[in-house]
């Protein structure tokens, strides 16, 4: 189901089946995916997989009661059975007084980035890229691990109130790690076209990080000035996104910025926008409820400006959804799409040069929320941690555990990088932060 007509035709059949099954109204999403991934470790390809799938999500509505099904059986009989099951669930379900009903949305302009060659990339091409990454790293005496992925998604959404949407996107990813003993370096690429990846550059970046991090010295935990590469800074914003901006959290009193709309909550150099249309991010035209996506300025020069809404939370506050809903049922409420952090004026080199004593952090690993109210997170450093002394990287050090409030960290900004990197659906610059707290250490 990779064309607009095929997709909407199937959705129409699903909606008709929902009405025939007794629904007052219904909405449906069809997601067709083609994904393939070639994985390598110890300088060889060891896993190589491909999967095609299409999944129908159907919600049948009876007054304030709803029932949902998700099925991969897309024959007429399969769709009919899914609609009948959803109707049976709806009949048995209790009423949800906050359910806003099935709403009409205008047709969204397709903004997804799509490259046919990437969508249908053959395994030999992925193996070729993997071979280049492996060859570059192995030639330097290091060991390569990682993956090369390609794929595409074709998504349609429709409902009985007349909403009809279709968009598509292709995806390409490289994750490469170079290892020597317990030292390791990592580099990534995320985009919509595999041919946009500078394969040699990614391999070289990982290799140099690995080589530079050999023979790490011990360093005691404590508070340090840190230079966070974009991949590390992205983690701070992702966790902030989880606890700050959902309208549902604000409605329930759980946001870490509760009661602070319009107030300065972060350093004035921080501006954060969720823009699902920005070509630097991962653009897509509509959300899981079929609502057109739109940009939302979350933080402007450190001031908390807005939350993101799905249809249910929007109805509760008497506003329009911002296009941040998940495919029904979505009990978790609205969530962020694409996080874009405004660039600053510094560079990683200038951040290091201006640091008397501190740490250059290449990656975080296994980060988790430790305390919600202060957006405190904990995790480990990975893929190269370096001590900075007198304005220069002086030596690699063994990995440390950090336990740090994101809000405090983003209020202690010393500098923001002028170049941004795309990491998943986030686009983030490097940051220099004062008084970042490390609370433990590892053995490597």
């Amino acid at each position, binding site marked *: 189901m990779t064309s607009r007509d095929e997709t909407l035709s199937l959705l129409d059949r699903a909606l008709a089946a929902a009405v025939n099954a007794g629904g007052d109204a219904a909405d449906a999403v069809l997601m067709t995916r083609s994904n393939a991934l070639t994985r390598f470790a110890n300088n060889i390809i060891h896993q190589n*997989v491909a999967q095609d799938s299409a999944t129908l999500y159907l919600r049948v509505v009876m007054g304030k009661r709803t029932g*949902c099904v998700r099925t991969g059986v897309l024959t007429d009989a399969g769709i009919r059975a899914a609609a009948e099951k*959803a109707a049976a669930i709806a009949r048995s379900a*209790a009423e949800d007084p906050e359910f806003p009903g099935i709403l009409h949305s205008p047709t969204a302009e397709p903004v997804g980035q799509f490259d046919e060659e990437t969508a249908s990339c053959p395994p030999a091409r992925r193996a070729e890229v993997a071979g280049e990454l492996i060859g570059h790293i192995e030639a330097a005496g290091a060991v390569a691990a990682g993956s090369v992925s390609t794929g595409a998604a074709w998504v349609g959404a429709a409902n009985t109130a007349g909403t009809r949407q279709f968009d598509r996107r292709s995806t390409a990813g490289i*994750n490469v790690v170079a290892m020597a003993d317990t030292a390791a370096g990592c580099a990534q690429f995320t985009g919509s076209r595999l041919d946009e990846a500078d394969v040699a550059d990614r391999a070289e970046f990982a290799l140099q990080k690995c080589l530079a991090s050999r023979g790490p010295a011990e360093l005691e935990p404590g508070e340090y000035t840190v230079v966070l590469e974009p991949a590390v800074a992205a983690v701070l914003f992702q966790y902030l996104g989880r606890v700050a901006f959902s309208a549902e959290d604000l409605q329930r009193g759980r946001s870490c910025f509760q009661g602070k709309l319009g107030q300065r909550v972060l350093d004035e150099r921080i501006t954060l926008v969720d823009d699902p249309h920005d070509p630097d991010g991962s653009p897509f035209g509509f959300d899981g409820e079929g609502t057109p996506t739109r940009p939302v300025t979350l933080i402007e020069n450190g001031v908390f400006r807005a939350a993101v809404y799905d249809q249910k939370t929007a109805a509760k506050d008497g506003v329009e959804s911002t296009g941040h809903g998940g495919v029904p049922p979505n009990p978790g409420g609205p969530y962020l799409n694409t996080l874009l952090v405004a660039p600053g004026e510094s560079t990683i080199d200038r951040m290091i040069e201006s640091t008397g004593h501190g740490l250059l952090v290449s990656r975080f690993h*296994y980060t988790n929320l430790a305390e919600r109210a202060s957006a405190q997170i904990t995790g480990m450093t990975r893929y190269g941690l370096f001590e900075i002394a007198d304005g220069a990287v002086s030596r690699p050090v063994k990995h440390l555990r950090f336990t740090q409030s994101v809000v405090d960290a983003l209020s202690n900004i010393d500098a923001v990088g002028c170049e941004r990197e795309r990491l998943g659906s986030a686009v983030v610059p490097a940051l220099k932060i004062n008084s970042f707290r490390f609370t433990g250490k590892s053995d490597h």
Partner: protein
Amino acid sequence: MHELVERAVGAATSAGASHVEARLVSDIEENFQVKNGAPVAALQSATEGLGVRAIVDGAWGFAAVQELSNDGAERAATQAVEIARASAGVIKEPVKLADAPVVEGTYVTPHETDPIEVPVERKIDLLMRADRALQGQPDVKITQGFVRTFRKRTFFGNSAGSEYDQTILKCGGGIMAIAVRDGESQVRSYPGSPRGLFHTAGFEHVEGLGLEDAAPRVAEEAQALLSAPTCPAGRRDVIIGRIQLALQIHESIGHPIELDRVFGSEAAYAGTSFLTPDKLGSFRYGSEAVNIVADATTPGGLGTFGWDDEGVPAQCVPIIEQGRFVGYISDRESAAKLGTKSSGAARADGWGALPIVRMTNINILPGDWELDDLLADTEGGLFLDTTRSWSIDDRRINFQFGTEVAYEIEGGRLGTLYKNPSYTGITPEFWGSCDAVCNENHWMIFGTLNCGKGEPGQTAHVGHGVAPTRFRNVQVGVVR
């Protein structure tokens, strides 16, 4: 052998594969959630498809299709062979598989009531009653409950002649109260972590959880946590309750013993392991009180089955004996590298995923202690339970976990309640500080539905048999 499985195995063999496995999997899952007295999710998911894994010229290929037809089976087989051929050009050594017996049979999870067949009304009514019982505390602003049920049927066949028909039933649920005041929120959940308590079992497991009965206490504790003092930091003796010990075992034993991880397969994603093969048989993982097995036969465990996804029979494998590290969990490929047999731990996340080494049920064997005696023997210590946050490094050495509650142990009983507790440690030092495990009266199987590994990401359901366990001189809270 199922007709389509046989056709896929035959097609891949004809196309040049030296070894083929095919799995036709039908998955049904139901998910019901209630939040603040209203249903927020009532969902049934159904998916079925066929996955084919083949070795050609010493390299693996895997492909999966949703279309269950002769054409679909042949397409998956052909694509798996094509992918394997593309990989063969860059391999250094051909894949070798440890020997495995040829198996044949049928397995169904022991149960009274198939959880998928239980009427929707019964599931929602159970949740609505529990949700009502969570109400009433002034600052409990969010109440939640959920029930999930699973039925997975797998037809397996391989080119050596193994075949089976396996149906795994799983179900469980949980409730949660979130108290919110002045921007602070505190969570209390029951009966497992916030993700519930799940077993391989019939729906009788869910109805035995006692969600409604436990709800008032859960809400009271969430309310009390708002006013509780913050857990003081320092070195303390601690008793880790069962729910939290399940996570402790999962992260600091279950993952490092995965043999594919030891050999570097996960190096670019989840990480590696400090448990290098030279440590097998000699490394002191913990004290003599620590005995751990990987047991895919534990009744009710989320990692309990008849055969794994390579057709290897379920088995119980010793991992740690009296503190000494004696075994890994493995699949046929990683076992061959070590020169042993597979431990039967190859598991795939559905038809579209290839099998990788996953935990089965990683259990601590019961010790000798009654819980009351252990509490009486730990005056001035802390009792910590219910997972709140977790983090561990890429070699599984340095961990930091947060729990929902901590209690001061005072006069042999649970005394002062503390909020925001956490503890941290180094894996072998921590297990080396273990000096008491409660007995079989306090032993129970817990587990998680959310064990992530692999690229593309796979989620496994794994079990952990646990009893309250004491550790000496543990760092509680973060070092300032």
